[in-house]
């Protein structure tokens, strides 16, 4: 850097003729004299090992998130997870990928202590300012949607159970002990995954409901996720506004909180989605 600076330094320019070491104005960086290294060879070797290890840790994050190879990046990223957590690395960096999708807001409907009803939603650009704070609420509503959507419905779980039992019977009759063990292990992991997904969304939704309950001095509150579609350009040219309620999909109930505690919505309930604020 210092040598690059030397090029533009007028004092040095005047001394150009005194030494052939001083580069001309148009010289490239490669032609500049190289400053001496400050670290010894063993220090550089240790640093090299540390740098390469660190870069491996950095790159394994996006290589395993959101999609991981079962045989390579997945198992490695699992081993590196403590480092990723400690240093807050391991992100996928897939900003607006693979496609910019619809957005989701959280709608809540409740009853106050005096019996009056109220309704609201977040993110709410009118009441949540500055913009960065609005964006935090926005990301929270997106997280709630993703967590809620990642739960398996009863029909899916039923089909998975049938598929497992069929496979189990087939492998048992064929006496394939190794595959049988693997199948049981996979089934345990699958069940644990679904259980964890439900626990996550329930914990998060419960906390959100509690905060809203306090804020509105309410006795009960229901939470819904609501998707807003992206309009086609032709619709906008025909006069459709981006905040039009026509773009809002029906409410999808997440759960409710009252004096009896938090209850997750029954995803198989034909009454859910309930209502729409179109």
């Amino acid at each position, binding site marked *: 850097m210092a040598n690059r600076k030397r090029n533009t330094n007028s004092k040095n320019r005047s001394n150009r003729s005194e030494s052939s070491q001083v580069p001309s104005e148009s010289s490239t960086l490669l032609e500049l004299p190289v400053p001496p290294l400050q670290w010894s060879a063993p220090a550089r070797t240790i640093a090299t090992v540390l740098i390469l290890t660190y870069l491996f840790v950095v790159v394994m994050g996006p290589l395993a998130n959101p999609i991981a190879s079962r045989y390579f990046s997945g198992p490695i990223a699992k081993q590196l997870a403590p480092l990723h957590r400690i240093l807050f690395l391991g992100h996928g960096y897939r900003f607006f990928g693979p496609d910019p999708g619809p957005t989701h807001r959280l709608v809540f409907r409740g009853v106050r202590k005096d019996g009056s009803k109220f309704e609201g939603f977040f993110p709410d650009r009118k009441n949540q300012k500055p913009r960065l704070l609005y964006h935090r609420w926005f990301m929270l509503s997106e997280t709630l949607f993703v967590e809620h959507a990642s739960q398996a419905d009863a029909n899916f779980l039923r089909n998975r159970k049938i598929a497992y039992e069929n496979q189990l019977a087939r492998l048992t009759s064929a006496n394939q002990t190794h595959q049988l063990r693997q199948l049981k292990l996979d089934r345990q992991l699958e069940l644990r995954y679904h259980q964890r997904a439900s626990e996550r969304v329930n914990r*998060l939704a419960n906390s959100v409901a509690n905060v809203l309950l306090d804020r509105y001095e309410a006795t009960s509150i229901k939470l819904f996720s609501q998707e807003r579609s992206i309009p086609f350009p032709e619709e906008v040219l025909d006069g459709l506004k981006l905040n039009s309620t026509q773009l809002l999909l029906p409410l999808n109930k997440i759960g409710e909180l009252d004096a009896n505690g938090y209850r997750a919505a029954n995803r198989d309930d034909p009454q859910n989605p309930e209502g729409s604020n179109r």
Partner: protein
Amino acid sequence: MKTDLEDTVIQSGPLTAFIHSWSRDWNQFWFRPEAPNTLGAMRIFVGLIVLYTHFTWGLELSTFLGADGLLPLEYRSLLFESPFAWSHFDWFSNNQLLMAVHILGLLMIAMFTLGIWTNWTSVFTALLIISYANRGTGALFGLDQVSSFLCIYLAIGNCGGAYSIDQWIAKRRGAGQGRSCTRNRIAIRLIQIHMCAVYLFAAIGKLQGTTWLNGEAVWGTLASYEYQSIDMSWIANHMWLVAILTLGTLAWELAYPALIWLKLTRPIMLLFSIPIHLGIGACMGMLSFGLVMLVGNLAFVDPRWLNKLLPSSAELELLSENMR
């Protein structure tokens, strides 16, 4: 005139010559001493962004990060299934104590931004950013990811060696602040490589979709009401422009990790980063994210140019040092 070492290398064969040349280039790439100017400028910009980011957490601190707030501790535990996603907020359940700790944190970040005791405040700021990010799991986005790694690298380098109160005090005392050093070089290289990784995987993610390839993705971002901060719906009348912006962004992100290293193309890549990130920031309500990405790109800016904009005595000291 050839040196003894060069003679030995040539006599040893092409493989040895290649290894020797590679080793020399590696040493120059990672370990050539570097002035603190770039890191000093980045410290100020990152510090200001992070100060603002954390100030806004404070507007609803207990609502988001309190023990009874929106983001329960159990959620993070269930998500990561790891005790390593640490946060100092886990130790405080009292909301007043939480606010006191938050204010101390803001003071720490302010000291870091100004360059006071920077060797220490840079490390504590990096830890603070990570801690907030871990605690805020569920309400985070790219801003938190990028600002955290930038802070880590600023703590590795001597980011207080330029444009700082530390440097000003040292200069008055005649001490040797602001000299070029190897850890500055390592920090800059880590920022550069991490920025390349961010753009590379952002581009890979986009290639998995269809709208980035059919040229409609930018419409999807501009027509999203929740993101919108400037009404850009007029662009529906000019979908050719949407296609250019979409494919241009994709091409730029794909090319960035390679072309940013070439002297000829680096200014072009940096030039394009300005409208792209400011555009995202202004149109999609993520100005802080757009700005922090631009600050990350500063690592690639020619320090001579930076020194013209922000003259520093650190650079002058470096010059005299390297002239020896």
